[in-house]
């Protein structure tokens, strides 16, 4: 099971964090800081794996990828395959790339809500939901369309918008 998905920039500022076991906000911050303090000391061209038992308890693993100014981090337990998790980060990033055409940190910062929508289409309750970025894009575009539609008809009476929603 995936325990957490985190994105943070190279200064340690969280950009997106989602924990799949309930974690109080202070604990979340502690974990993010803890992960960052290890990540920022790692050189380039080393493995993408980290021993993380001291932060997340026994049998937890962490993979990360470093893209430009961002770290993408997945924490999970022994029931997942490490390299498959690494691939999942790649899927997430490729999807974001399609969403924002050449994604950069600013896109992620200012499209906070969209980030959540994308992530929810890839990881669901700590399980891998979808691995095809084309499928994820389809789902996300559908959501965007719904929103746009709903915005443009916001003056139309409720019954009609309900009808459109069907």
């Amino acid at each position, binding site marked *: 099971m995936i325990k957490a998905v985190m994105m943070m920039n190279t200064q340690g500022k969280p950009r997106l964090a989602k924990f799949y076991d309930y974690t109080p906000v*202070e604990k979340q911050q502690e974990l993010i800081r803890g992960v960052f303090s290890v990540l920022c000391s790692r050189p380039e061209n*080393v493995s993408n*794996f980290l021993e993380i038992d001291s932060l997340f308890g026994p049998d937890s693993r962490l993979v990360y990828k470093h893209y430009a100014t961002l770290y993408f981090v997945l924490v999970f337990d022994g029931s997942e395959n490490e390299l498959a998790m690494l691939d999942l980060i790649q899927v997430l990033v490729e999807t974001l790339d399609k969403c924002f055409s050449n994604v950069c940190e600013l896109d992620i*910062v*200012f499209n906070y*809500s969209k980030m959540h929508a994308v992530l929810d289409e890839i990881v*669901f309750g700590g399980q891998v939901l979808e691995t095809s970025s084309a499928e994820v894009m389809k789902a996300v575009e*559908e959501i965007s369309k*719904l929103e*746009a539609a709903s915005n443009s008809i916001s003056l139309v009476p409720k019954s009609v918008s309900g009808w459109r929603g069907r």
Partner: protein
Amino acid sequence: MSGMRGLSVFISDIRNCQNKEAERLRVDKELGNIRTCFKNEKVLTPYKKKKYVWKMLYIHMLGYDVDFGHMEAVSLISAPKYPEKQVGYIVTSCLLNENHDFLRLAINTVRNDIIGRNETFQCLALTLVGNIGGRDFSESLAPDVQKLLISSSCRPLVRKKAALCLLRLFRKNPDAVNVDGWADRMAQLLDERDLGVLTSSTSLLVALVSNNHEAYSSCLPKCVKILERLARNQDVPQEYTYYGIPSPWLQVKAMRALQYFPTIEDPSTRKALFEVLQRILMGTDVVKNVNKNNASHAVLFEALSLVMHLDAEKEMMSQCVALLGKFISVREPNIRYLGLENMTRMLMVTDVQDIIKKHQSQIITSLKDPDISIRRRALDLLYGMCDVSNAKDIVEELLQYLSTAEFSMREELSLKAAILAEKFAPDLSWYVDVILQLIDKAGDFVSDDIWFRVVQFVTNNEDLQPYAASKAREYLDKIAIHETMLKVSAYILGEYGHLLARQPGCSASELFSILHEKLPTVSTPTIPILLSTYAKLLMHTQPPDPELQKKIWAVFKKYESCIDVEIQQRAVEYFELSKKGAAFMDVLAEMPKFPERQSSLIRKAEDVEDTADQSAIKLRAQQQPSNALVLADPQPVDGAPPPLKVPIVSGSTNPESVARSVSQAYGTLSSIDPQTPSPDLLSDLLGPLAIEAAPGAVSTEQHGPIGAEGVPEEVDGSAIVPVEEQTNSVELIGNIAERFHALCLKDSGVLYEDPHIQIGIKAEWRGQHGRLVLFMGNKNTSPLTSVQALILPPAHLKLDLSPVPDTIPPRAQVQSPLEVMNIRPSRDVAVLDFSYKFGTNMVNAKLRIPATLNKFLQPLQLTSEEFFPQWRALSGPPLKLQEVVRGVRPLALPEMANLFNSFHVTICPGLDPNPNNLVASTTFYSESTGAMLCLARIETDPADRTQLRMTVGSGDPALTFELKEFIKEQLITIPMGSRALVPAAGPGPAPAPPVAQPPSPAALADDPGALLAGLL
């Protein structure tokens, strides 16, 4: 998602904040704004609500607690329009946990969305349930979710979510899938064409089979089918082909599911599977493209696990090991890492150890890899593959690596080296060499267990003693040696130094002077060991050396009045004993051998490996009788006895000792005295002398109760005390009790101080509220870690301590505010349980917080017109209590008046006609009593100042009693005196003792050392 200008503006405001403080201000402003809007605007437009709720989530991510607005987030779930509903679902699943009450309120709305016909709403609802649904949801929604999953009319988008949602519900409540025929439906689901639904369903299957594989045996061939379909690349759409590989995730999941079935019996299924596996093993190459590499190796490593699980024929196994051998030398670090990890797992498979050993040199190279993750894996693998044949090489590599390893690894490294040296030593002198080198190179990281163990071996093996003694002597010649090394050397030379007597530089007086040279630099726990060594040296000097005797007696004399009880006791006792001649010889005779027992080190290592783990390979390891550690046990090849077996000396059949070793095997319940309840006590008082025979033996003569044959056992009980970390090995600066008493009367000062840290306190009091700030200052140039501060509040106080950071940087001070509210009158005291780690030492202190009753008093001076009507209105018990107090500290009347004034009970002069009496008043504040007037009258007897009559009254019986007892305590004890201990606590529970824990009564009864400590 689009068009939320407010959110964008807020985010860029946050981005523009120059520092954390500015950010906090901006966030607070926004939170205040949102709060007011939620409160004041009766009808918020959905758009505004949505905007605010997104801001809340953003603030939450930044690390601020958002403790309101949850209702608004939940209420958005029932909004009719998609954008609001969406944000309601997303934010609710981020902010609330599964037990939140609001969530129960939403359960019907969620269900309506799930059974409704709007697919987008279904998706949102499923996502919420899949993320935070609890048991309630499981009970009411499982059938609906099942229906969605197997429905043929639903889109894959909904069905794949339903599959994972059901997985969550199953985890919360296994009955969620407890319906007839579910296993068959599950098998049908695995025939699915859509790879998205299939991936989710396979995840669900993994969860189900890990719980009960028998019920789902019909799914096994289906998994193999899926693998075949993917391996042949049949019917795999382009979007599920990842860098040319047909859905690696699904391949991995299907193979994972197969690892939960114990075997595959059907021969044709087995054959088909092995064909697929063979294809994967052979057909994977390391290529340029990193992503393709990762994906193909994800599949490959999963295939390796499955092969190991299936106990394939030897040919396939050696093929796997060969592959792994290739992996651990490739350039790609991820593959190197996983290669090492999987090789470690491979050790569990029989018959491949020899093939793995061929890669030993490559593995040792990995110990020098630039990546710490890889070095760790290499260390694990070397540890696992070590046996008699390669122990020397591996341990020597580890020792070499120790000098360059990073600090975070040294402790583990030294423990592992010590364990391997012990388990596989080809000869004992090598073992002694290794441990001494270990202490020399990494003394800070060598736990006491390690040096206790080497002492035990030396004691039990006569052949080894001269060698160990001469080695110990050699290390003493080094200019700077680690304190642990000094401890071992002193102990060994005390016991066996006389065996070297004829060698140059090893006479008793030379040994004494070289050891004594080091004494000024050592810490308190080492001094008692040195004293014992001196006593032993003195005893072994035959014929007696008056010169040496004079020197050693001078040392004993010097420590006779040492402030440290342990040192003082030893000095006094050795001095007295050494005057007794023959008796001295008996008492200080060589230590008897230790009974054999499981090494505490090895036990420690096994504990570490025992962590629960549900992964398939571990489960399997548990089913198998062997694991890496056991396998590697030194089975003597040539029938010679195993090298480290130690003759069983005393009482292995003695039930008591068996019981004791059993109790040891189960944890830290090991001690000098079976009744001693606290391991803390041991490390406090006896830690430094644990290895010694002397104290127990010394006391036989003086205190009698310990039987002669009890001595060796007791000593061995303590010799290898599995104390995880030595606690409280710091010397305190100042007396904690005195500091506390001083702080009871003033509002700022030092609460605690030791060589590493100073804790100061500053307090402000207003009515029943108090605000204290704890100032924790690190006095060192290295950080203090694992800092923890926990408040143990008594029932009458509400205390709220802001979190204390885990680490205090060098020379830094951190402040932690503590809010106090007094609920009702009581004299109980809150305790701060404070601990930190310095180096490997864990220091723990229990400190009373000076939030005492008097802090909630406010001085109040009354005139006689105000006083007497009130005094008369309080008619008698329980509101007015009178007591004659004896044993009062004699005080002149003005001094007593000052004392009262100092704890805010104001003396009202001239009210009482009798000049020997005092009348006083004050106001007490608490939540239950509010502000309450308290009156008191003290009648003293000029003839006998040690007794007085006291009358206390107030409008609350509990307050009257508590205040009376409080005043009594102040009058009887000497709060500022130099010998203040815990105040005589009256009838109430005694406040928790300060750091130096007085020994428990049980220990007092039997242990003279503890008795003496208690008295002092």
